[in-house]
């Protein structure tokens, strides 16, 4: 399943330090053939929003262990 438009990313609890201290990012994602699933979202965030120390945010294709992810305010482990 795909998400076609995502509006807001929030970085909190210290994660914002990797994004210039900015907690709220409102973005419009470009159209592309690949689906906007979490893997691709994270890649896009890393390329376009992340300002420093990528190794503190990502590990491989996922977030670094210890970083919590919520989707629409719900734990992504529920999904």
């Amino acid at each position, binding site marked *: *399943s*795909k*998400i076609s438009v995502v509006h807001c990313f929030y970085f*909190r*609890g*210290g994660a*914002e*330090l990797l994004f210039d201290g900015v907690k709220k990012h409102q973005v419009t994602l470009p159209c592309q053939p690949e689906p906007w*699933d*979490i*893997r691709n979202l994270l890649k896009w965030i890393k390329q376009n929003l992340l300002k420093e120390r990528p190794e503190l945010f990502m*590990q491989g294709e996922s977030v670094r*262990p*210890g970083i*919590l992810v*919520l*989707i*629409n*305010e*719900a*734990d*992504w*482990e*529920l*999904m």
Partner: protein
Amino acid sequence: DRPCPRSHPRTCMKCGQGTAALVIRVGDPFCRGCFREYFVHKFRAMLGKNRVIFPGEKVLLAVSGGQASSAMVRQVQEVSGGSGGAWGARSPLTPHLTPFLCQGLSREAAKRLRFVPGLVYVEEGAVRRQSPEQREQTLAQMETLLQATGFPYHLIHLEEALELPPSILQPGPERANTSSPSRPSYKEAVDSFIQQQRQDGDSGTSLPGHSTQDKPAGPPATPRLPDAAQTQELLRSFEAAGTATAREELLEMLRTHLIVQTARDRGYSKVMMGESLTRVAIKLLTNLSLGRGAFLAVDTGFTDQRHGDVMVVRPMRDYTAKEIAFYNLFFGVPTVIVPPLFTKRREKPSIHQLVERFLLGLQEEFPSTISTVYRTGEKLSPEPAKASSESQRCLLCLCGLDIDGGEW
């Protein structure tokens, strides 16, 4: 690969009705409401089970602005009979209150077994590579946060550690402990507190021993930043520490000394530190690697009595970092995040960082890793207290020197 949210969300395993908001432990979905009850209940049960906080006792909460200590402050507010609001009537009783209910006491009075909290914040911007402007901003944010609680608070700078008296390197004179004849047992203290409440009517009168000495939240003059000279001297000490590991240990030691000294100066007999389960598990393995195996119980246990007159307790040690983060997010607990301790370019990571990376990494694939480490740690208990005249103590950490031969 994780699929996106779909139209049929999972239900709470506790009430069977609410939409699940998060997964607790290994695979238990909880809705927000049940999660809140679980969280608040755990704090009350922690205090009730351990029975070391006496009614009316002055307790100093060490607040870092981080997730765990901020959640801890909120729990103290909840336990102090603060609002309760819609949740007051629904909160489950903790087992230790049941006997008092049987005496015909109202639920409200039984729940209001309050102690007298104060807050302390140690500003560490110098060693976290913050500019003076950033330090001022952090201080301002923290002061707002602390003032909003209504509790008396104290703001101190890490630089003040340079002026600590030598007495901090020794345990203070022990106050009467629970087994001493001159001090009532926990049950006796609670009984007499409840009696007092009954006489005063269940209308929330002042607590025994509550002095007006610490004026609540009329702010003391906001402390300015320390002299540049003091900051330089502090930084020199940290540079001299040599390795990232030594620096982390130095920071923790100075911070603890400052907090204990503040407690001592202001008549607090207990200090609450906000170390989470995750942090405790990491500390356990880190300290083992640092050669502190003999002191794991006192370094990570619920109570830490090495300072004598001031007891340190860790009421958040049963909450995972995840539970705390979700609680703070869902229920609007404010935090003030600061950058980590400075590290030099191309310096090897500290043992603390390595252990954290190791445990969090392992946890991804083996979700009971951290709780297993924690539970193993729970089985450790501090050595029965030897008379302090018998054993020598380490000057820095106040633990008994591990010098007796003895059997392994």
